[in-house]
């Protein structure tokens, strides 16, 4: 989403902190994300009263209580609808929607889909901990097959949904991923989300220390991340590895990992092109998962130029107002009235 920078303001992180006690479990990844958002907003040049944070239900959705902005903690899965209403009522507001993997992709997936396709200028942060945190640890629609939880003692049997593929399938105009372990990357990604005009979808890998601890460690831990994370940068070749010696090349329609050197150079690799109108490229990236591929983080797709829902709606109103009168008495009287005299 993008809101025009209205004035220089001297906001700092402190201005976005509420006096409320934060009630997440010690060590929960949500703290880092809260910190990142509180550090991002003051840098956007938007007055504090213009921010509205809307969430559904879940540990992650407690977020608005901890943000000293306007906020609405709604009901399970329905945050996209409330955020839509806020934005349509006042398109000048900077609307941030917080959801979880259960909230956004289970009970509320339908609404999320419609928010993304309508392309309202809203930032969506989906905290993916691959578990239902608030209800104490049942598997979620992003849990891997075979996930053993209290509700799936023999392991879950259903195929998980990939949040990025879901967003791409909904034709979101901005799709990104970041991790609660990388403050700098989160802030960068949130800023990019804000800069995009249209719905910005950001999946945040989030660690639930209590019910799904270390679920992303295989890709985000200090030891693994060099070889397992692929940091996307526009216009740069897809290179990863501790020594930056591995890359992704396209073989037909399939990506493959290659080692640089021995006649293979940067020119042979895929160049990151988030604005490619063809979504095939972004889909290839989104499907690259552990352990076969490094996991991409950063902005997978950013498509400019599609009109936002609220702009189109307001334009129609302005057009109608330029053409037809808004005389209420005439409306009530209509064209086929008659007069009774006594």
């Amino acid at each position: 989403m993008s809101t025009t920078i209205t004035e220089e303001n001297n906001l700092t992180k402190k201005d976005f902190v509420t006096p409320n006690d934060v009630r997440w479990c010690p060590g929960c990844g949500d703290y880092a994300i809260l910190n990142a958002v509180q550090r991002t907003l003051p840098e956007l040049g938007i007055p504090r009263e213009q921010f509205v944070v809307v969430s559904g239900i879940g540990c992650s959705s407690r977020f608005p209580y901890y943000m000293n902005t306007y906020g609405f903690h709604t009901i399970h899965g329905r945050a996209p609808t409330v955020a839509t209403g806020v934005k349509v009522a006042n398109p000048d507001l900077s609307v941030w929607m917080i959801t979880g993997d259960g909230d956004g992709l289970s009970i509320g997936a339908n609404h999320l889909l419609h928010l993304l396709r309508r392309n309202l200028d809203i930032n969506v942060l989906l905290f993916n901990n691959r578990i239902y945190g608030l209800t104490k640890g049942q598997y979620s629609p992003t849990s891997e097959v075979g996930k053993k939880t209290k509700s799936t003692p023999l392991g879950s049997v259903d195929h998980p949904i990939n949040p990025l593929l879901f967003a791409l399938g909904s034709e979101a105009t901005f799709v990104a991923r970041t991790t609660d372990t990388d403050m700098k990357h989160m802030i960068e990604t949130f800023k990019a989300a804000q800069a995009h005009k249209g719905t910005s979808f950001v999946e945040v890998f989030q660690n639930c220390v209590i019910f799904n601890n270390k679920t992303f460690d295989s890709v985000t831990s200090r030891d693994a991340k060099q070889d397992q994370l692929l940091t996307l940068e526009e216009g740069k070749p897809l290179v990863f590895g501790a020594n930056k010696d591995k890359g992704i090349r396209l073989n037909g329609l399939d990506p493959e990992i290659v080692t640089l050197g021995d006649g293979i150079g940067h020119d042979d690799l895929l160049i990151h092109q988030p604005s490619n109108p063809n979504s095939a490229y972004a889909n290839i990236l989104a499907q690259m998962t552990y352990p076969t591929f490094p996991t991409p983080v950063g902005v997978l797709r950013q498509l400019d130029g599609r009109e936002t829902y609220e702009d189109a709606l307001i334009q129609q109103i302005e057009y109608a107002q330029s053409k037809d009168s808004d005389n209420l008495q005439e409306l009530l009287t209509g064209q086929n009235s008659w007069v009774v005299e006594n």
Partner: protein
Amino acid sequence: MIQPTDSFEEIDSAVVRFAGDSGDGMQTVGERFTDSSAFAGNDIATLPDFPAEIRAPAGTLAGVSGFQLQFGNTKILTPGDEPDALVAMNPAALKSNIGDLPEGGMLVVNIDSFKSMNLKKAGYESNPLDDEDFRKKYHLIELDLTGLTKEALKESPLKPSDKVRCKNFFALGFMYYVYGRPLEPTLKFFEQKWGKRLPDLAEANSKVLKAGFNLGDTMETARNRYQVSKAPVQAGVYRKISGNEALVYGLVTASRKANRELLYSGYPITPASPVLEGLSQLKNFGIKCVQAEDEIAAMGVALGASFAGDLTVCATSGPGMCLKSEFIGLASITELPLIICNVQRGGPSTGLPTKTEQSDLLQALFSRHGDCPIPVIAAHSPSDCFDCAIEAVRIALTYMTPVILLSDLYVANGAEPWRVPNVSDIPVIENSFAKIEEEYVIYRRDPKTLARTQAIPGQVGLEHRIGGLEKGEDGGVSYDPDNHEEMSHLRAQKVAGIAKSLDPIEIQGEPEGDLLVIGWGGTYGAISSAATNLRDEGFSVSNIHLRHLNPLPDDLGDIIGRFKKVIVPELNLGQLNLLLRAKYLVDVISYGKLQGKPFKVSELHEKFLEHLR
């Protein structure tokens, strides 16, 4: 055969019913007849009646669509119990409607559709028109509408199949002759609708309408003509209005009067879709319309926009109300203003989607989780939807609460003349906005109304958070047991306190007596007519009609106490009855009907009489 007379007989009122295939344009001719009668200065009430299928197989009973109206020279409160004249376009229409036509009634049939195929589809073993007894029973007028229409359009450039489709207007023209109706409003309608786009069609329909009218003039059998003179009404500008139209206009007016932008969000559902469609036409009034992905989303959009300062409205019907429940609870606990209209239809589930029922009173009052009282009001006639929309908005904004406005299919689709109000005479509606200069405490209440104040995102210094968790006065989440109890009481007292702002109940008839009839919603016309008739016959019966169903008016208990018996007729199995029994501990007599049809005046008359003897 009833002997036709050659005179122009003056009558007080008449009931006409058009019935045909869903594709025959019966709703259109009914609407036109209504306009023409309104133009003639009569009072009117209408009852469109159509099947759930858009085009059920042609000629079948399932596909029959009807439109009945009553017009008269006095106050007309209902579309009439039974028709004086029935127009049947095919055997199926005859079969499903003839039972309602009294002996001696005028029966106009389109004979060219009475062929063996159609007769069989309608379940007739032989042609009823060949039966001498049948012919004698009614004032039968047989018209070959197809042939006559073709003949009238000999010179028209329309395709033959398009020509035949004009035949409904032949029948209409003929009925205009019988009842001395003016043709002008219909001719004007053709011109407005097709004049520019399809001038040949406009021309053809005009021709056929006039041909139908002229046929009456030349036909022996049609000699009895009726005259219904103007109804005496208050001076003013009048128009015809349906319930859904009145709802739309009431909402637009209320938003002006509250000086708050109107946002409507809805998901299509019969019979509430015309509200979505109607408001979508009014973008020049600055109205934002969102067609959401479902009724849950519609409610969420409305709630979000209410939080951001708009006046917000959703309209739906029973199944959609079910989906909104959880959000209505959120609107209640966050104390945000919002209007939820339920245009009721037969339930449960998909039920009778195109038939009327007072299905959802208890749902409106109770279908939520927790103790969650919400104001509920109900419209009693098409034009009353206008006033109810304004009243709903007044309550919502004054008391900072969601409000449920009940209409029903009968009220929504029915039409009547409406004296157009002067916009400047309608009172301004006050908002409960926070004052910037004061410290903002989210749930601090106005001592009179117990309403909280609202701060709008974008207002400097009033940043705050609301949500579905129980909270203290400052909005902070609170699990304190005493606080929850206190907050629940406060929310309930706030809603109960709305009763203080209501006018005394209007009693029709004496303020005490033998029988009190209590109604709500769309049954007003039938109840009021039946009770008036009984009073005219000398019985001690009074009737009241409740607009406010939650809270119930403060004077209701007293009024009930002044009557020996209380009866509550409802198009359900006794929902208001249950409320009155619970609240006033009175032995209310319940009279329920669940046939997807409104009450007949005669059946109520009989029922009331049972309890008066």
